[in-house]
């Protein structure tokens, strides 16, 4: 902080400091060279240590979770009176070398850079509602995400997530790829004070609920993400955003974010015009917000300056883990966009659609009852629309997808952690669980030019139950059965019985 102040003062009085600047420059250059030399030496040392973990010379290069197995062997054992070197040697063949920042396998080529990964594999049988509920077998390499993290300095941290969905994307007909390669997150944190830190503009997750920001497969027990996060809260909801965050008191932290807004346009990307509007009347276009998919197709655009309106949205979250209820954690969060209507929006009658604001409220908790295996989770989320008559879904001549003044959902989950003991050199844990979710995306009071004939498909109950087995906190094997019941005449026809493999390291 002192350096920043003096840097500013030297800017303001530039001329008077010119002479001293020359000498300062030389000193700075020398220090930079020394810094580089130290970093090179550190990197070399780490490489040497990675190759020979038993003969570590330097101090605090301590290990990752794998060293739990080395618990009986000492950490850096370079003093003669610690006689555990032999113990370390016998364990080393079964324990991989520690502190390898690249996918846990290799030392970092750049000091301070690490690359982690997480991913989800899904397979099983699902009812296909588009095929009249026929049970179909299938497989999905749902996602694979690389997480580069780099400590630019101790206070400036770079983070990104590079995501490949559904086995990636490609154009050759024989590859049969229809997935996505995208930047899910990319931001630089300036860590200043406990109470105040700044996340520079980048792509960041919108702070609503728990799972949106903690969505690795080891954070939830079902094969698919919790239902409320597949529409009411868009799946992996991310946006061009900047935020400030910090810890207010022990167990209480906050984040306030400004982001580019949700948009009520759900059509193919190529359909938006060069003028950054919806395709002109009378072509028509798909809604981003509907009574069937909630906000699932309303995610803001993150590239090419192709957003369809100028709106900035605001979100805030309070996370609490009060010390007087050990094992309890929860959050309340909110989001507000003054306008989600895209440029040129129109009803199928040709009338232009005006402004429409969106407000979201979420409250959730997770409670792990101390000294037992019992875990409870609960959540409530509500979406309110300022002017639902201006939603495309209420004006697209489709009477089945209409949306009322609000949408909401809630869920309750109970799980039990059962230790399975040591298998294959790690501690395994099984977690059976059951979750009940209710969503109503078509509350009454539809407005707009459409006829109002919702089928009831937007009012759904989910019974989700299954088992998650953790061979380590970083790997999970899942089996989940889900029954979906809605209010439509034909029924939801979306039951599934899925298996999954997830990892996060």
């Amino acid at each position: 902080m002192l350096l920043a102040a003096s840097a500013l003062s030297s800017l303001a009085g530039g001329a008077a400091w010119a002479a001293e600047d020359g000498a300062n420059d030389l000193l700075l250059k020398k220090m930079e060279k020394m810094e580089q030399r130290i970093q090179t030496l550190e990197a070399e040392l780490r490489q040497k240590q990675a190759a020979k973990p038993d003969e570590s010379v330097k101090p605090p290069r301590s290990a990752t979770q794998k060293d739990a197995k080395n618990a009986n062997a000492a950490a850096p054992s370079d003093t003669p009176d610690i006689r555990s070197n032999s113990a370390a040697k016998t364990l080393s063949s079964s324990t991989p070398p520690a502190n390898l920042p690249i996918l846990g396998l290799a030392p970092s080529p750049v000091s301070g850079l690490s690359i982690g990964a997480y991913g989800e594999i899904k397979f099983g049988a699902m009812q296909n509602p588009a095929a009249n509920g026929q049970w179909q077998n299938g497989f999905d390499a749902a996602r694979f995400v690389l997480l580069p993290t780099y400590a630019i300095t101790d206070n400036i941290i770079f983070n990104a997530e590079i995501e490949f969905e559904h086995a990636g994307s490609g154009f050759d007909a024989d590859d049969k790829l229809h997935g996505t390669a995208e930047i899910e997150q990319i931001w630089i944190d300036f860590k200043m004070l406990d109470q105040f830190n700044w996340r520079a503009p980048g792509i960041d997750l919108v702070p609503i609920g728990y799972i949106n920001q903690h969505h690795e497969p080891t954070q939830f027990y079902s094969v698919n993400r919790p239902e409320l996060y597949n529409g009411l809260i868009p799946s992996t909801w991310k946006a061009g955003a900047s935020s400030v965050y910090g810890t207010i008191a022990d167990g209480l932290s906050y984040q306030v974010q400004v982001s580019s807004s949700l948009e009520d346009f759900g059509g193919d990307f190529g359909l938006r015009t060069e003028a950054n509007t919806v395709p002109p009347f009378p072509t028509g276009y798909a809604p981003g917000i509907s009574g069937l998919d909630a906000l699932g197709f309303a995610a803001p655009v993150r590239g090419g300056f192709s957003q369809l309106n100028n709106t900035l949205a605001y979100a805030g979250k309070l996370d609490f883990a009060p010390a007087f209820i050990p094992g309890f954690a929860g959050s309340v969060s909110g989001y507000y966009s003054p306008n989600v209507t895209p440029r040129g929006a129109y009803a199928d009658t040709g009338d232009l659609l005006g402004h429409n604001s969106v407000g979201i409220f979420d409250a959730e908790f997770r409670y792990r009852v101390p000294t037992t295996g019992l875990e409870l989770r609960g959540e409530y989320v509500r979406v309110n629309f300022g002017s639902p008559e201006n939603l495309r879904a209420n004006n697209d001549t489709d009477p089945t997808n209409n949306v009322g003044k609000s949408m909401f959902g809630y869920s309750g989950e109970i799980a039990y952690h059962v230790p399975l003991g040591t298998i294959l050199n790690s501690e395994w844990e099984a977690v059976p669980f059951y979750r009940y979710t209710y969503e109503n995306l078509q509350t009454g009071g539809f407005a707009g030019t459409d006829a109002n004939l919702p089928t009831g498909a937007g009012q759904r109950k989910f019974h989700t139950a299954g088992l998650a087995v953790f061979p380590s906190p970083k790997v999970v094997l899942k089996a989940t059965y889900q029954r979906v019941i809605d209010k439509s005449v034909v029924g939801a026809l979306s039951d599934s019985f899925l298996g999954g493999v997830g990892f996060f390291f």
Partner: protein
Amino acid sequence: MTKWIRYTLPAAAIASIASPAYSMQYLSISEAQKQAFPSATHFTEVQAGRVWKAESGGRVAGFFIFDRVVGKHLLIDYAVALTPGGAVQSVEILQYRESYGGEIRSPSWLAQFVGKTSGSSLKINSDIRNIAGATLSSTHVTEGVKRVLLAYGNRLR
């Protein structure tokens, strides 16, 4: 162009004066030593850069061990202060670099380690509470403290 400096310079000056009192992102080793053993008169390095003996008036007040573990991907600098008998007196986080998982710095979470010995089980979700959203950091710090206790708890006198 220089107008903004007029507005930010006073704030920056005030912040730079005030921040040492509030900035808890970083504790130096000597600051952490003083926090762990406020009555100690001097610290002798027993193992270079790793272990210090805290003495106060000729008597051993305890031992201070500096260690590092990985959080999610970046290193966490922390220190374990041991009583002369080899039990944990305190655990302090000196530097937490990552953007998520900083909840392990909460005093009530760190207080769980006080009194632990090399015989304690020190397992997440057993005698040490997990922190949802900071699972890896809390697991690694717990394992680090356990390792420190097993390595040094019975051997430092």
